[in-house]
């Protein structure tokens, strides 16, 4: 047996490579956005459209107790947009898998998980951009934060955690999809009921029996209610609301952690299976 020229790298070196490889792949995704700017539309233009649509078109017809509709609306739109964040990583991962570029990465001495982390980093950056844009458009149409700084920061932290969980769901979807085109269909079937049968745009209490129960236990409702509570916006909760909506922050946090605990191992396992020969 011949002696190999170098010894296996130590832990510190491996961690440094893990990080630099992930950042390298995140940069690749950012470079893609420069070539295909449409990919950023759902993080930029779409939330603005929803703010304008509901603030000025539907808003006049929806009445929410405890403050103006726009004060109510923004918590819902923030959560809805981050839920749509599932689509970005799902499409870019499904595309990479069909184009064979993953074989190139896998034949290189880079860290294997860097592919997933790279997507996570760049998509988290675009979710943060979406958050900033929505907050700004909310402020423009008259939404305000009425709580104190710690609560406001907690609200944003909860949103980032939720975005993070949704990106993992998106990565899993991308690894399960056969083609990038399949992602859109599946994602919409998943996301539309999730974000509309909820208290996103109208209070859950106004929904008919049956749908109301679905909305009350929908994680999107818990998130929207939690964000509204933390920002000091009207939550429009009836006193008889279900437990998750009575304790929105706790249940929102619980949902995010539950999703991560379920989806992260599934995603990693699916990634291994999908890329194994």
């Amino acid at each position, binding site marked *: 047996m*011949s002696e190999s020229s170098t010894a296996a790298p130590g832990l510190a070196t491996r961690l440094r490579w893990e990080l630099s490889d992930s950042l390298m792949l995140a940069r*690749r995704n950012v470079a893609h956005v420069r070539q295909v700017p449409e990919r950023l539309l759902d993080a930029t233009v779409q939330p603005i459209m929803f703010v304008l649509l509901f603030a000025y078109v539907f808003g006049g017809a929806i009445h929410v107790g405890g403050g103006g509709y726009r004060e109510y609306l923004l918590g819902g739109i923030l959560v809805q947009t981050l839920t749509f964040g599932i689509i970005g990583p799902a499409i870019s991962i499904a595309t990479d898998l069909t184009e064979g570029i993953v074989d190139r990465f896998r034949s*290189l001495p880079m860290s294997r998980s860097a592919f997933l982390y790279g997507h996570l980093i760049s998509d988290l950056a675009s979710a943060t951009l979406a958050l900033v844009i929505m907050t700004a458009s909310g402020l423009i149409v008259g939404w305000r934060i009425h709580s104190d700084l710690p609560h406001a920061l907690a609200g944003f932290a909860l949103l980032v955690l939720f975005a993070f969980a949704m990106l993992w769901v998106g990565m899993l979807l991308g690894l399960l999809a056969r083609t990038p085109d399949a992602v859109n269909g599946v994602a919409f079937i998943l996301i539309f009921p999730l974000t509309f049968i909820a208290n996103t745009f109208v209070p859950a209490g106004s929904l008919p029996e049956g749908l109301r129960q679905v909305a009350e236990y929908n994680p999107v409702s818990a998130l929207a209610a939690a964000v509204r509570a933390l920002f000091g916006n009207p939550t429009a909760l009836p006193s008889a609301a279900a437990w998750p909506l009575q304790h929105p922050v706790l249940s929102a946090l619980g949902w995010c952690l539950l999703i991560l605990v379920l989806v992260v191992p599934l995603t990693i396992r699916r990634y291994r299976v999908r890329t*194994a020969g």
Partner: protein
Amino acid sequence: MSAAGRSTALPTGAHDGVVAEGLGKRYGELWALREVDLDVPPGSVLGLLGHNGAGKTTAIRILTTLALPSAGRASVAGLDVVAEAARVRERIGLAGQYATVDGLLSARVNLEMVGRLYHLPRAIARARARELLERLGLLEKADILVRTFSGGMRRRLDLAASLMGEPPVLFLDEPTTGLDPQGRNDLWTLLRELVDGGTTLVLTTQYLEEADRLADNIVVLDRGRIVAAGPPEELKARVGGERIEVTLASEEGLTSAAEALSAFADGQSVTAPEELRVTMPARAGTRLVEVVRALDAAGVDALDVHRREATLDDVFLAVTGSHGSPETPATEALAR
């Protein structure tokens, strides 16, 4: 991440080149590769010859750590491809059958990214990318998006990517597919230079001529198994060199044509009655004009008489007595 816990299982006689022992890969009930032994000494070239679905790509995928073997062992650069996969990847370059470059990046950015993922310092990655772009004639298009590239340009870029880490062992899966004759010649020259510089090369091809031009040793695969192996000269001695093919106007002349041809034959001639064709391995120095005269004298009504190089089909005919099995779609689909 690394398989540090796994014990290494090097094949006997492992060296800095490529060695495989009893290598096999099973997809469900189907063996895409079975009992394959390989020995590629450092600095030499192995040509894996076979039709689509013969197991060439499967073999490459196992040796480049992209797939796990179901049986047997293999070493690349003295390292176990399963237990020491991470370290194997530091020492190999791979240009797959489907150009694995990023269409939404420029050629230069693609190469620099690959260099960085080999953990080269930025300045070195940049310099090497430039050098390879120049060497492969892509410098003019260096900053254009790769998705606008022609198939041949993509292949060249893919090859450049595989060379970014200056790998001691290089794997090329059908490297000349999609290249024009000029591109193929340039590639052959480049590969010869690399091998002269000490690189160990494993390449797959469907063309006997290509294996003959480049390889020190040829392994012929059929349905996942080795059906012939040896230096090109040996294989050619078994197969014979040039072929003379006669196509007839009607069935009657087949026997007399075969008889007339036997005077020039270096081995058994083959008659294909459905195609009204007789193929014969020609003895060295045979002149086509004499063949035509002999056929004429035998009263054979020939539509066409021509001379051609021996092909993979002729190899199969010579070593297995059949045409081999081009396209076993099931294996091909599973190997993807």
